[in-house]
């Protein structure tokens, strides 16, 4: 099966890159799964977990807070202002942030914390 090359880049660093068989991401109009030889696509992402199935059978989950997905010539890039791999996420801290944002009614922070927790849960 053909593989696609994935680059997951945040504004200030390269988060992950490698070969994958499929990538699932959440765009403005719903989840989208991309496999090799998909037609060229440029989409706006909503913040949510991104799942990358690597070609060696593993799974990489990342929390992506907004951004874009672009796919062409079997090269997929996910651009996000903030992106973290699931194993970089500090679950306790995210939970604390969730509590805090709920009590302060900070919707953006709450969403960020939820996405982080979802990504961390998805990786397990």
């Amino acid at each position, binding site marked *: 099966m053909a593989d696609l090359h994935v680059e997951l*880049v945040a*504004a200030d660093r*390269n988060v992950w890159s490698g070969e994958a068989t499929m990538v699932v991401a959440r*765009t*403005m109009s719903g989840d989208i799964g991309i496999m090799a030889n998909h037609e060229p696509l440029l*989409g*706006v992402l909503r913040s949510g977990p991104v799942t990358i199935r690597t070609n060696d059978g593993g799974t990489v989950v990342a929390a992506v807070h907004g951004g*874009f997905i672009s796919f*062409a010539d079997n090269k997929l890039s996910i*651009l996000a202002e903030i992106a973290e791999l699931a194993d970089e996420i500090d679950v306790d801290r995210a939970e604390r942030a969730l509590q805090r944002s709920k009590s302060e009614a900070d919707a953006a922070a709450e969403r960020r914390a939820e996405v982080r927790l979802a990504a961390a849960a998805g990786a397990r």
Partner: protein
Amino acid sequence: MGAQIRVYKRRIKSVTATKKITKAMEMIAASRIVKAQRQVAASSPYADELTRAVTAVATGSNTKHPLTTEAENPSRAAVLLITSDRGLAGGYSSNAIKSADRLAERLKAEGKDVSSYIVGRKGVAYYSFRNRTVADSWTGFSDSPTYGDAKAVASPLIEALLADTAEGGVDELHIVFTEFVSMMTQTPVGRRLLPLSLDDAGTVGDEAGAERKKGEALPLFEFEPSAEGVLDALLPRYVESRIYNAMLQAAASEHAARRRAMKSATDNAEDLIKSLTRLANAARQADITQEISEIVGGASALADANAGSD
């Protein structure tokens, strides 16, 4: 013992202390250049991919967007000037300011009003001293900007771009920053960020676009949710990432300029110490010569007196 030597010794001591400080600042700046360069490198994949995506939308669709279309009669332009917060960096800030002044003059000659946006305390001080109006300014992060800082700078600019010219909006966005060419060379440059200028090859005409291979055909993209939607979301990010890149380059340039300024200050201090030491030695020798001649003179006077009394 002459008072002169004491004066020289004191000056040597004070210059040595200054030299220690400038040497320390030189080394701090040198270590920060490396860090700043790494940050520039780390931010470039994002900027490159974003430029690619913007190029793809701009060429792959016929969408009209206020941020990509040139106004028929551009009447107001925003100039974002990036300077440093701290001095002691040689001509770093003043060169950037001069370059912004030149750009503003050119824009005025083209019949456009210029509204200034300034990053860095030095630029703000320059403008407020001359009572020039500043649309907005930011200070406090010039030597290590974060993406959040870039976002804070970009948001009023994007707002101004989207607003009607009649209501204080702007038609063009220019950015003046100091480009990090190498450790020894940093040049202030003025670039037009928006509206995007598409060159003949259809790529976005800026430094990142220019690096792309000419004639590389872009595939026909499918846009999700729509070309307009993508462009709406993409352009603010594009502006932010360009500003972020400019601020990081400016930070690297600032450190490089400071390192060079501090290096020449250290060298000057060394020269000064050398010449002061020579002067102090000459004064010491003059003192000794004088003492000897006094002793000899005294002794011969005594000898003469003794000879006279015999």
